[in-house]
C-alpha cells in the first residue's frame, strides 16, 4: 500500500486543474476605534486542486487574514468562499469545525504543538475527530510520521525535538487526516535556512507526490520559489506570477 493510499479516507482523487477553492469578491474589514480598516474589497481568486500557492506581501497586507478566511477561522464581510463547489461562509461554527477537521490541515509558524504530548499524540489529535478505531489511527499516525521522517522520534515530546523536527511533526499533524487543503502560515519563519529548505522540500513533496493543495503565506522569496504559483497581495489585490 502506498503512502497516499494509507492516508486516503476514500474520496476520489482530486484531479488537477479542477477548482478546489474560490474567493468570489470577498471583502474583509476591521474596526479599529472609530476607524474602519478595509483589508480586502472585492478580492477574487481561484485555486486549483493540486496547486502549491505562495502568498507574499508586505506586513499588514492581509496575508494571515486571507489564510484565516480560507480556513474558516474568520468570516468575510461580503462575497463568497467556495470550497469544492460548496460555499463555506454560511456554515455554522460546528459545521466549520467539522469541515476543517475533514478537509483542512494547518501548519503554523511556531509549530503550536502540545508541549506535554509526544509527537505521535500530537499527530493523532485531528484523528480524534474522526470515527477511526485505535488501530487505524495508529497506522495513520505512523505513516504520517514516516512521511516526515520522524517515525523513530514518535515518543519524543516537542522539547526533545529541534525546531525543524517540531515543524515536521506539525506537518504530519496537518497531513494525517488526509485533508484536501493545507494552509501554512510562515512555516519556515522560525527556522534557519537549511532547516527551512528541508521543510519547504517536504511541502513540495506533499504537493507533488500526494497531490495536496497548499496555500503558504511567507515573507521569504526563496520559500515562495518552492511553490507552483506565486501571489503577491498588496493594497487588497493579488498580483500573480505562475511557475512554468
Amino acid at each position, binding site marked *: 500500500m502506498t503512502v497516499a493510499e494509507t492516508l486516503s479516507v476514500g474520496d476520489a482523487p482530486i484531479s488537477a486543474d479542477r477548482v478546489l477553492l474560490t474567493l468570489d469578491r470577498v471583502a474583509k474589514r476591521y474596526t479599529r476605534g472609530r476607524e474602519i480598516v478595509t483589508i480586502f474589497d472585492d478580492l477574487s481568486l481561484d485555486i486549483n486542486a493540486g496547486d502549491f500557492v505562495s502568498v507574499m506581501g508586505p506586513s499588514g497586507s492581509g496575508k494571515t487574514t486571507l489564510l484565516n478566511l480560507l480556513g474558516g*477561522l474568520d468570516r468575510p464581510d461580503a462575497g463568497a468562499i467556495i470550497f469544492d463547489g460548496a460555499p463555506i461562509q454560511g456554515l455554522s461554527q460546528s459545521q466549520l*469545525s467539522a469541515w476543517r*477537521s475533514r478537509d483542512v490541515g*494547518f501548519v503554523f509558524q511556531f509549530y503550536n504543538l*502540545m508541549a506535554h*504530548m509526544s509527537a505521535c499524540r500530537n499527530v493523532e489529535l485531528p484523528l480524534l475527530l474522526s470515527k477511526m478505531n485505535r488501530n487505524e489511527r495508529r497506522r495513520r499516525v505512523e505513516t504520517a510520521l514516516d512521511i516526515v521522517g520522524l517515525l523513530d522520534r514518535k515518543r519524543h515530546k516537542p522539547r526533545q525535538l529541534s525546531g525543524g523536527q517540531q515543524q515536521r511533526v506539525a506537518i504530519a499533524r496537518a497531513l494525517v487526516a488526509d485533508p484536501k487543503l493545507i494552509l501554512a502560515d510562515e512555516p519556515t519563519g522560525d527556522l534557519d535556512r537549511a532547516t527551512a529548505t528541508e521543510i519547504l522540500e517536504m511541502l513540495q513533496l506533499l504537493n507533488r507526490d500526494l497531490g495536496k493543495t497548499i496555500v503558504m503565506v511567507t515573507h521569504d522569496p526563496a520559500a515562495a520559489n518552492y511553490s507552483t504559483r506565486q501571489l503577491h497581495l498588496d493594497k487588497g489585490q493579488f498580483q500573480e506570477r505562475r511557475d512554468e
Partner: protein
Amino acid sequence: MNDFALMLSGLAQKKIRTILISFSILIAFFIFVVLSAFQTSLSGTSDTGIENRLVVMNKISPTQSLPVAYNQRLQTLPGIQDVSYFQWFGGYYQDQKATITTYAVDPESFVRINSDLSLPSEQVEAFLNQRDSVMIGRALADANGWGLGQRLPLSSNIWRREDGGYTWSVIVRAIFEEPVTGISDDWAFVHFAYFDDARAFAKDHVSTFLLETVDASQNPQIIQSIELEFQNSHAEVKAVTQAAYAASFINQTADFGAVLIGVTLASFFSILLITATAMAGAIAERSNEIAVLKTLGFTSPRIGRIVVGETLLLTIIGGGLGIGAAWFAVDALRNADQFFSTMTITPMTLASTFAMVVGLGISAAAIPALNAMRIDVISVFQKD
C-alpha cells in the same frame, strides 16, 4: 488517545498544582465524611433497627428519676411492644479514674430488647438467674483480663450503699462479643434489683425507660399518649425516639448538625473557589493550545466538555481519596476508642459525598469551561 486522555493530559501539565488542589479537596471531603460518621454515631441513625425504640425520661431533666412502677403503666399503653428500664451506675474498677460505663438494668427486658447481643444462651441464662451477675463486653473483658466467673468489686462514684460503702460485688457471667446498636462492647450491665436493694437513696426509681413500639410510624402518637398518661403526676415524663435521645447528648453542648453543615458549607465554598480559580488560570495559560484544538476542528462544546471532565476528574480524584482516607480513619477510630465505636460511614453519607464531589466539579468547571469555549482563535494567534 481520546477525550479522557486529553483531560488527563491537561491535569498532568502542572503536576504540583494538580496535587495541591487534589489535596485540598481530599482534606475537605475527609473532614466532611469523618464528621458525618461521627454525627451518625451520635444520632444513632447508622442503624435502621432502632426506629421503633423510644426513650422515656423525667420531663424536668434526664438527671431526675422516675418511679420504676411506671414500668407496668407503660406496658399497658397501646402500640408498645416491650419496656425496659435502666439506671446510670457510674462505675469504676479500683481506681476512680478507671471509669467503666455501667448501667443497672432490668435483666429480662434488657436481654429481650437487645436480642442481637452475641453471646451463648447458657451465659444469658447464668446472667439472668444470678442477681449478682454482671454482663460485660469483649473489649472491656480483654482490656482488663477478665473472664467468666471472675468476681469484681464494681464501685460507683454516684451511689452510696446503705452499709456506707460504694462497691457492689459482682461476678462476670456473660461476655458479649460485639457492640450492637446503642451498646458498646466496653460497657457493663448489672441487675437493677441487686443494685437498688443495696443503695441508700432513690430506691425504686430509675433514670430511663427504653420502649419498643409495634410500629415505628406510630411513634408520634405513642409519644403523645405516653406524655398524656403521666401528665399532672408528680413525675411527668418526656418521651423521644432513641435517635433523638442520643443526639440530645451532644446537642447539650453544641448543635452538632448545624456545626457539620457550617463546616461543610465553608469548606465546600472555599474549595469551590480554589478549584475554579485554579482551573480558570489553567485555561488562561492554555489558551494557545485550546485555539489550536479549535483550529484542528474541535468544537467549542466539545472543548467545554473536556474542561468540565478535567475539573470533574480533579474533584473525583481528591474527593475519592478523601473518602478513602476517611474510611480508614473511621475504622481506626472505631478500633482505637470505644467512644467512637459506633461511627459509621453510611451509604447515605457516601451517596451525598459523591453528589457533593460531582457538584463541586461541575460548579468549579462552569466558568473555566465557558472561558475555554469563548476563546477566539484569531485573537489568540494574533498575540503570538
